[in-house]
C-alpha cells in the first residue's frame, strides 16, 4: 500500500533538498585520498577523483583555488563541500587542498619549484640587497610563536633605535598563506614603507611548513616592493618562500642576525678605528724626531767645522807672531841697538845672550 505520508518532489527540488541536507550535515569536510584522473579543462576548471582502496569520489575546483600543484598518484587532503550535481552525480566541491605525507609534499614542492624557477622567480638577478642599517622594518609572524620571540630577543640584543611593525598572522594551516599575503599587501601599501619585510616561522614538520610553499604566497613575496627576508623552519628546511625572497635566513634567529648589525661589533670596530690612527701618529713623531736629530747633528758638525777653522787660524797667527818675536831674531845672530845713533852717543846693544853698553865712534849713512 502506498505511503501517503512520503513527500513528493520534483527532481530539481529533491536535488536542492539533498544539497541543503548535505550542507547542513557536512558544511565543510576534510577528506584524505589519492589523486586519480587529474585534468584541467579550459585552463579554468580542475577535475580529479579522490580514491582509496575501496572507493572513489569525483572532485571539482577552479584553477585559482589550486595553490599547490598535484598530479595523479599523490596523496592529498581536500577541504570540500559534498554536492549532488543537477545530473545526479555526487561530487566534492573543493575549496582548498594540500599534499599529505612526505612523498606528496616533496613531489608538490618539486613541481611548483620547477614551474616558478622556469618563470625566473628565484633568479639571482632579482635579488635586492637589504639596507645595512635599517631604521624601520616590518615583521610578519605569529607573535605567540617561539620563532618570533627568538627573533625579537636577538634584534633587541643586537641593535636599537629601530621601528618594528609587526603583523600577527597564522604561520601554519590552511589560512596561513592568505593571512601572510594580506600582511604583505598591507605593508606594501603603506605610505611610510618599511625598508625590509621579514617573514619568520620557527621549526615544524613538513606539513606545518607547507604554507610557505603556497604558490600565491611565493608570488606575493617575489612581487613585494619592499625587499624581503624570509626565515622559516630550521637550517635544513627549504621553502619556496625562502627561494623567492631577496634574502634567505636559515632560521628566525638567523634572520635577526641578518637584518640588523651587532652594536657590540660596531663598538669594537669604532674602538679599533680610533686606535688605528696611533701607528700613523707614532710614525709621524718618529719621523719628526729623526728630522730634528738630523738637524741637530748637522748644526753640531757645522759648529765643529767652524771651531776647527778658527783653531787653524789661531795657529797660523801664532806661527806668524812667533816669527816676529825679537828674541827669535836675536837668536838668529842679530842685535838690537837702543840709544841715539850719532858719533859720541852711548848706546845699548842687545844680543841673544847679553846687553852691551857702547859708544858710537863712527856713523856713516848707507
Amino acid at each position: 500500500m502506498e505511503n501517503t505520508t512520503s513527500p513528493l518532489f520534483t527532481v530539481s527540488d529533491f536535488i536542492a533538498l539533498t544539497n541543503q541536507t548535505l550542507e547542513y550535515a557536512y558544511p565543510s569536510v576534510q577528506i584524505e585520498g589519492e589523486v586519480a584522473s587529474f585534468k584541467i579543462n579550459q585552463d579554468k576548471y580542475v577535475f580529479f577523483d579522490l580514491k582509496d582502496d575501496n572507493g572513489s569520489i569525483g572532485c571539482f575546483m577552479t584553477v585559482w583555488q589550486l595553490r599547490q600543484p598535484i598530479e595523479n598518484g599523490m596523496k592529498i587532503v581536500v577541504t570540500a563541500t559534498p554536492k549532488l550535481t543537477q545530473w545526479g552525480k555526487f561530487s566534492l566541491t573543493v575549496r582548498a587542498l594540500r599534499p599529505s605525507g612526505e612523498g606528496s609534499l616533496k613531489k608538490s614542492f618539486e613541481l611548483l619549484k620547477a614551474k616558478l624557477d622556469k618563470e625566473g622567480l628565484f633568479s639571482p638577478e632579482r635579488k635586492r640587497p637589504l639596507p645595512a642599517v635599517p631604521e624601520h622594518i616590518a615583521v610578519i609572524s605569529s607573535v605567540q610563536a617561539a620563532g618570533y620571540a627568538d627573533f625579537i630577543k636577538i634584534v633587541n640584543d643586537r641593535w636599537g633605535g629601530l621601528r618594528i611593525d609587526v603583523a600577527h598572522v597564522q604561520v601554519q594551516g590552511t589560512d596561513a598563506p592568505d593571512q601572510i599575503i594580506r600582511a604583505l599587501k598591507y605593508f606594501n601599501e603603506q605610505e611610510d614603507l618599511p625598508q625590509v619585510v621579514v617573514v619568520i616561522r620557527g621549526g615544524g614538520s613538513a606539513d606545518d611548513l607547507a604554507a610557505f610553499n603556497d604558490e600565491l604566497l611565493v608570488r606575493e613575496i617575489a612581487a613585494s616592493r619592499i625587499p624581503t627576508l624570509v626565515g622559516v623552519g630550521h637550517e635544513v628546511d627549504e621553502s619556496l618562500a625562502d627561494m623567492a625572497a631577496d634574502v634567505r635566513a636559515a632560521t628566525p634567529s638567523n634572520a635577526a642576525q641578518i637584518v640588523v648589525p651587532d652594536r657590540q661589533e660596531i663598538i669594537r670596530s669604532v674602538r679599533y678605528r680610533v686606535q688605528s690612527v696611533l701607528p700613523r701618529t707614532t710614525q709621524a713623531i718618529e719621523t719628526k724626531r729623526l728630522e730634528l736629530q738630523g738637524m741637530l747633528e748637522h748644526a753640531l758638525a757645522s759648529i765643529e767645522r767652524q771651531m776647527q777653522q778658527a783653531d787653524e787660524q789661531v795657529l797660523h797667527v801664532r806661527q806668524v807672531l812667533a816669527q816676529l818675536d825679537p828674541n827669535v831674531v836675536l837668536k838668529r845672530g842679530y842685535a838690537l841697538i837702543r840709544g841715539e845713533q850719532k858719533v859720541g852717543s852711548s848706546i845699548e846693544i842687545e844680543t841673544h845672550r847679553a846687553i852691551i853698553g857702547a859708544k858710537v865712534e863712527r856713523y856713516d849713512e848707507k
Partner: protein
Amino acid sequence: MTKNKNSTIQEKIAALEELVAWFDSDEFTLEIALDKFKDAEKLASEIETDLSQLKNDIEVVKQKFDQA
C-alpha cells in the same frame, strides 16, 4: 624620535670615519694630530654610549589579517 637617534649615530660614525681618514691624508700634521685624536676618542665614546642606550620601538599593527 627613534629615527633621529639612529641617524645621529650614523652621522657620528661618518664623522669618525672622516676624522680617522684625516690621519692618513696629506693634510696630516703632528701639530693638530693630538686635537684630532682627542676628538675621535670623544666621538667614539659618544657612539658607544648612544648604541648601548638605544631601544627598539615594537608595535603590533591593529589591522587584522584573518579576513579578506
